[in-house]
């Protein structure tokens, strides 16, 4: 960050600004914070209600903020305003019908929700997912990670006041949603991941379009970095604000870019690879201080890494089936229904009743864009799950907000909420 002495001070007005002495104001605030003397009005604590409808909250998050002048002394998040009872609804549906329901939890990372759930069911059913399907899954997962980070960047920049970044990020996200529409027919909540593989193979032309996007995305990410990293307001608001060390984060259960920004390189894609992630060569961006700027920089760098992963996956995409050949779990391809009686019976059973899953409990963690996203599925042997629980990363990360914001200004709290990347759909489920 350029200090004020390096910045061009062409006009007298700027020079005058440097002569303002703020030490007395700082002292006053310090005194009030310590509580030693000062006027009564400085010692009074004010509880302010942010939300649930507020332009700076990401979704319907309500914060009860206890303030002393402008310093946050305590913070209580109140959630539940978009609680949809998804886990309860999932108990009512057969296993493959749960996929669209569970996708709508963390509504920016729908492929990740589906992956966690589908991975858990595959563990229970012990079905082998073919490599082509795994590579396709990786492609879609990383594209979704980029899309999620783009919305995060857009809305965070919007909160900080940089409105144009919001529109740029939406422009890129439109390209990604076009790709999703090409492969599955839907822009969001695509129901593309199924138990045993993916719903359909990618159409011809998909690979070319993805490569076009991959050529464009790093340049655009460079643009965003260039705009934001040289904007002094953004830097002043993000650098040094609300840091939190890795030890506290770990005790709060926080994972993902927040933990990596604090210096701990924990990433399930590298530590405990699933879905062929060990076939790809990518780095994990790690921060140093753990303040808002590191959180921003880590997520921006992750976009480049995801681009790398997608391009490697496209290069190495193997031929083969796009879903498991076990007809007791995956639907047979439609052309078989005309010729094979067995395929017809399998199709019928799968669509009406669904496949039965042996009883047991499974916890399947994956690395989502916000941290460890895991799905716990308990099966009692029937064709409907007995319990589906998503360990959502935003839900656990939200507990860290209080620790991050205590002792800092309200404006920093707004920036921190943006950098925390809470998705209320995942928090409330």
């Amino acid at each position, binding site marked *: 960050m350029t200090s004020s002495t390096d910045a061009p001070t062409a006009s007298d007005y700027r020079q005058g600004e440097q002569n303002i002495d703020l030490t007395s104001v700082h002292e006053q605030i310090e005194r009030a914070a310590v509580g030693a003397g000062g006027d009564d009005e400085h010692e009074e604590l004010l509880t302010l209600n942010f939300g649930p409808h507020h*332009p700076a909250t990401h*979704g319907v998050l309500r914060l009860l903020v206890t303030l002393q002048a402008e310093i946050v002394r305590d913070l209580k998040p109140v959630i539940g305003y*978009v609680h949809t009872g998804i886990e309860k609804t999932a108990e009512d549906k057969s296993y493959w019908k749960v996929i669209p329901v569970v996708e709508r939890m963390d509504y920016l990372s729908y492929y990740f929700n589906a992956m966690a759930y589908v991975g858990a069911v595959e563990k229970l059913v012990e079905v082998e997912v073919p490599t082509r399907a795994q590579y396709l899954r990786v492609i879609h997962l990383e594209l979704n990670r980029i899309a999620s980070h783009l919305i995060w960047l857009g809305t965070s920049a919007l909160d900080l006041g940089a409105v144009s970044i919001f529109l740029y990020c*939406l422009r890129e996200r439109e390209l990604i949603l076009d790709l999703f529409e090409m492969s599955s027919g839907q*822009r969001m909540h695509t129901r593309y991941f199924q138990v045993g593989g993916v719903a359909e193979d990618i159409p011809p032309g998909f690979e070319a379009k993805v490569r076009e996007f991959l050529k464009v995305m790093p340049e655009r990410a460079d643009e965003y970095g260039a705009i934001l990293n040289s904007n002094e307001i953004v830097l002043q608001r993000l650098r040094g604000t609300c840091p939190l060390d890795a030890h506290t984060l770990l005790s709060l259960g926080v994972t993902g870019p927040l933990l990596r920004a604090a210096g701990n390189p924990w990433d399930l894609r590298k530590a405990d690879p699933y879905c062929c992630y060990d076939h790809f060569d990518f780095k994990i961006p790690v921060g140093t201080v753990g303040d808002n700027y590191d959180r921003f920089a880590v997520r921006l760098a992750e976009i480049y890494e995801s681009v790398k992963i997608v391009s490697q996956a496209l290069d190495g995409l193997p031929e083969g089936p796009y879903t498991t050949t076990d007809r007791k779990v995956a639907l047979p391809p439609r052309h078989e229904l005309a010729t094979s009686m067995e395929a017809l019976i399998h199709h019928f059973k799968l669509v009406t009743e669904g496949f039965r899953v042996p009883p047991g409990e499974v916890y399947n963690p994956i690395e989502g864009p916000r941290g460890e996203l895991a799905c716990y599925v308990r099966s009692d042997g029937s064709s409907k799950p007995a319990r589906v629980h998503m360990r959502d990363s935003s839900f656990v990360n939200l507990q860290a907000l209080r620790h991050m914001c205590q002792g800092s200004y309200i404006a920093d709290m707004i920036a921190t909420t943006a950098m925390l990347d809470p998705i209320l*759909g995942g928090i409330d489920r």
Partner: protein
Amino acid sequence: MKRERVGGPGTSTGNGGPGSASRTGGAVAGAGKDLRVRELNAHQLLRGAEMEGSNQPAHLEGEELERYVHERVLLTTLDKTVAWARSNSFFPLGFGLACCAMEQFHAAGPRLDIARFGFEAFRASPRQADLIILAGRVSIKMAPIIRRLYDQMLEPKWAISMGACCSSMGVFNNYALVPADKFMPVDVHVPGCPPRPEALMHGIMKLRKLVQDDPDAGWRERYDAVGTEEHPLDAGGAQTFAGEGQAGRAPRDIPSPSAIPGASLEKRDA
């Protein structure tokens, strides 16, 4: 309270001149289908002919005539202009609940630009907004808050229920959600899960047409929401102009959407 679409039969004000012929011609055509006061057309009004099978005089006079002119002539064009202005400059409330909010962002994004239509000024405060787009699922904890937001909006205000979750119960028909119709009047429901940004625009265009045709389209009677106005009703029970004779459709012929969740996805065909 149906707003008439009559071009303006200039009768007692005696508007002569070049325009009057077309005006009268248009008036006859328009009046024939819209005039509710006594099933009269302008010809009968002008000539004072008798209505068939009725013992009422077929023409208006005195105070009735003045009121008729006041409604149809002076204010209709003004109302139409105001309606045109309102419909082209909705100020949506920046309000997103869940996944549909993402598609709402895209509707405001660069590809499908809501600013082309004049609606890019998303206001943060409900006091400055006149269109609330319920984008996402409404949980029972959030419903009273949305109702309060809606009440804080100033008249005239419209509501679009975007997506399947707030229109009907959507994918999740369970204890935690409530359809938007149950606690607030909704003008347009946009189906989809989530609806494409183009679908949202289609819904907003329908609302725009609705506003241009019929700004106060009697929704308060339909949803039993009388008493929600900011301006109190006058003694006669009528808030605006055409009180009697607006036979139209009786409230019970249109099933109240709050009684049939999921059955009315789009209740108005403009």
